[in-house]
């Protein structure tokens, strides 16, 4: 059993990341002396306002956007809600439908369901067995009745990259708005909103080393959306409420660092991830790596070991100090069947075995080597206890 902090290995960066030192340092003044309300006319207010505007400008620059196209939110979920509901509420008279995929994050899926509850139409694009959204099917579903299309850029459970620019072009051709949840993509794939046909985009701070509770939405100039909240005129009325200046500064700092380090960090993580996956496959040849046949980001690895449920394996890993996760968890913290793998047509017994390991700033070569050794060992141990697994092993030998 691990005894000290250095014995613990964090492999859940897709869930959240630690706040970076530079980010914390940048935020601290705004939690101290520079506490002003950016809407105030006095010196405290002016100071806060300048910091907020600067933060907005810096976030915009990391996305290839213009300053006025960035609106701060409480996080990815709010940004997704604002994008989809905001766009649909504005356009529903002429365009009652929304298009999304069945393997989106719940923040998008549940919002699309809300559209349906409010009388709209929800259209779901097919997901391929390889784990990507079928762009051809998307092109077929997008027509003049569609208000907004929402397709995630990088899937949060399996790490596959969707062809968002292609689907965005299809949306644009038919007058629909294109939204993408880029929470797992930002800082991992190249985003240039000056060139890419995307109208709305969501990012989240805590996946990239900023705190929980801050995110942003890109709203392309000229795109009209209805606000979710009602109140003051902050952020052009798109998002009333006194702005969280400190966290906005934190998000800007984290975003700059993430984009600056993107290529180098992806290369580093890809090498570690590949090493980990190869080690698992070598020891457990029937392990399934989800999304392996599709373009994937470097930091996410989703692995199923047939015959071993994810719940047991995650416990065994945690008891050795290795923190990973299942695809999705409900409020209680228990593992629930993955809607992502179900959408790909993965068999339930394989889907319930899926364990997600996600790499990031805390992933050192030593840590990954340790996991590469322990993961297969725990799998083999758990298999010893499972009669079912013993049977299937016997069958595969025969």
């Amino acid at each position: 059993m691990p005894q000290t902090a250095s014995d613990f290995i964090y492999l859940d960066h897709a869930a959240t990341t630690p706040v970076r030192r530079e980010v914390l340092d940048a935020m601290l003044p705004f939690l101290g002396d520079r506490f002003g309300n950016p809407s105030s006319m006095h010196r405290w207010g002016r100071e806060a306002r300048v910091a907020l505007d600067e933060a907005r400008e810096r976030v915009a620059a990391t996305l290839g956007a213009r300053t006025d196209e960035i609106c701060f939110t409480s996080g990815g979920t709010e940004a997704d809600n604002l994008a989809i509901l905001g766009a649909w509420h504005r356009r529903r008279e002429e365009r009652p439908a929304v298009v999304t995929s069945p393997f989106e994050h719940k923040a998008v899926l549940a919002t699309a369901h809300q559209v349906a509850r409010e009388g709209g139409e929800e259209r779901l694009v097919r997901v391929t067995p390889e784990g990507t959204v079928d762009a051809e099917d998307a092109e077929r579903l997008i027509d003049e009745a569609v208000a907004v299309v929402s397709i995630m850029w990088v899937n949060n459970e399996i790490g596959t990259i969707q062809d968002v620019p292609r689907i965005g072009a299809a949306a644009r051709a038919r007058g629909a708005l294109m939204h993408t949840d880029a929470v797992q993509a930002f800082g991992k794939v190249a985003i240039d909103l000056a060139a890419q046909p995307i109208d709305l985009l969501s990012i989240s701070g805590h996946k990239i080393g900023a705190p929980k509770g801050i995110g942003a939405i890109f709203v392309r100039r000229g795109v009209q959306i209805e606000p979710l909240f009602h109140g003051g005129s902050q952020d052009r009325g798109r998002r009333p409420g006194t702005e969280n200046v400190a966290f906005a500064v934190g998000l800007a700092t984290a975003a700059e660092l993430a984009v600056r380090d993107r290529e180098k960090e992806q290369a580093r993580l890809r090498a570690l991830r590949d090493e980990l996956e190869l080690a698992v496959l070598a020891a457990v040849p029937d392990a399934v790596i989800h999304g392996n046949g599709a373009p994937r980001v470097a930091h996410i690895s989703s692995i199923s070991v047939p015959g071993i449920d994810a719940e047991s394996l995650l416990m065994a890993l945690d008891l050795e100090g290795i923190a990973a996760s299942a695809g999705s968890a409900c409020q209680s913290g228990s593992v629930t069947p993955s809607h992502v793998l179900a959408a790909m047509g993965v068999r339930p017994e394989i889907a319930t075995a899926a364990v997600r390991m996600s790499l990031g700033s805390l992933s050192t070569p030593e840590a990954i080597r340790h996991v590469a050794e322990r993961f297969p060992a725990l799998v083999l141990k758990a298999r010893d206890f499972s009669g079912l697994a013993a049977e299937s092993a016997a069958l595969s030998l025969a």
Partner: protein
Amino acid sequence: MAGGSKGRVLVAMSGGVDSSVTAGLLVEQGYDVVGVTMKLFCHGDDVPDRPCCSLDSINDARRVCDTLGVPHYVLNMESAFGRDVVDDFVREYARGRTPIPCVRCNTFTKFRDLVHKADAIGARWVATGHYARVLDGRLHRGLDPAKDQSYFLWGIDRAVLSRLLLPVGALTKPETRARARSMGLRVVAEKVESQDICFVPHGDHARVVAARLGSDAPALARGNFVRADGSVVGQHDGFVRYTVGQRRGLPGGFAEPMFVTEIRAATREVVIGPRAELLGRGVVARELRWLVDAPLVGEHVEIQVRHRSTPAPAEIVRMDGDEIELALDEPVAAIAPGQSLVLYRGDLVLGGGVIEGARRALPVLAA
């Protein structure tokens, strides 16, 4: 040192005081404790104004483990619990019987499925907060007669006994609460005990049956109250609401207090009668399981036909495969099909089965 020298134990924690103290005692005794809470049912993510079912209990268990400095996990066992426990519960009620889901939960969910989880994390031991004791690999009543829960444990696999730890079985309930306070487990020390079946909201089992089988199921349809001779004496709103031995909700106007003596699902009749008609001189049970080497026909034992009833002396008169029949020294009232028959010798639990029915006449030992 953390980690524990006596080996790893998986503790099933409900968020209540008994299982919390169980975990605390095992930490004190030097075990490497891993707490788990089983999520057994969910009334739906689709009901947004209701918190996730049993969430508060799960959070309490997690806080207790945090206080004790041990890990805690939530295990999603909904589908197996639904299949092994809830489905059977509904099926039994639909047959006019009175099931005990806690027995099946112990048999299948806690002491089979959960033991598999223990295996997967290399835990030599499993523990629960039951008031019962394992002595020399044999199951005994809890020391506190007011709390004894051995009645619910007859169905567990005998092989599990050698790795089962039930530390609160040696305590009284007030002692358990006192231990909770001294361990600093304020969250749970004063918690009021729930007598409800965990997955049945407000004790309304008819609603669970209706939700599963539809409100037009025969068990929920109007039927007759009859006397043993077949004479109709009134009407009821569904036999699912009645249990053998029940007095509440019966037609009035009789000289003596009346009880449900039988439920005839096929004709939807609820038979009522005076106390004399409620008495059984024998009992038949099925799905037998033994926690010791099986006793022989002709042996004298004590039996219980419900939780907290006085043990009644009886003689085993027949055993065929997994069916048993006993003759009762004295008549026993309200032997309800679906409840458990548990056989004891003093504090020692011999085994048990599911009650099939009572015999009104004294059974005799086959020659």
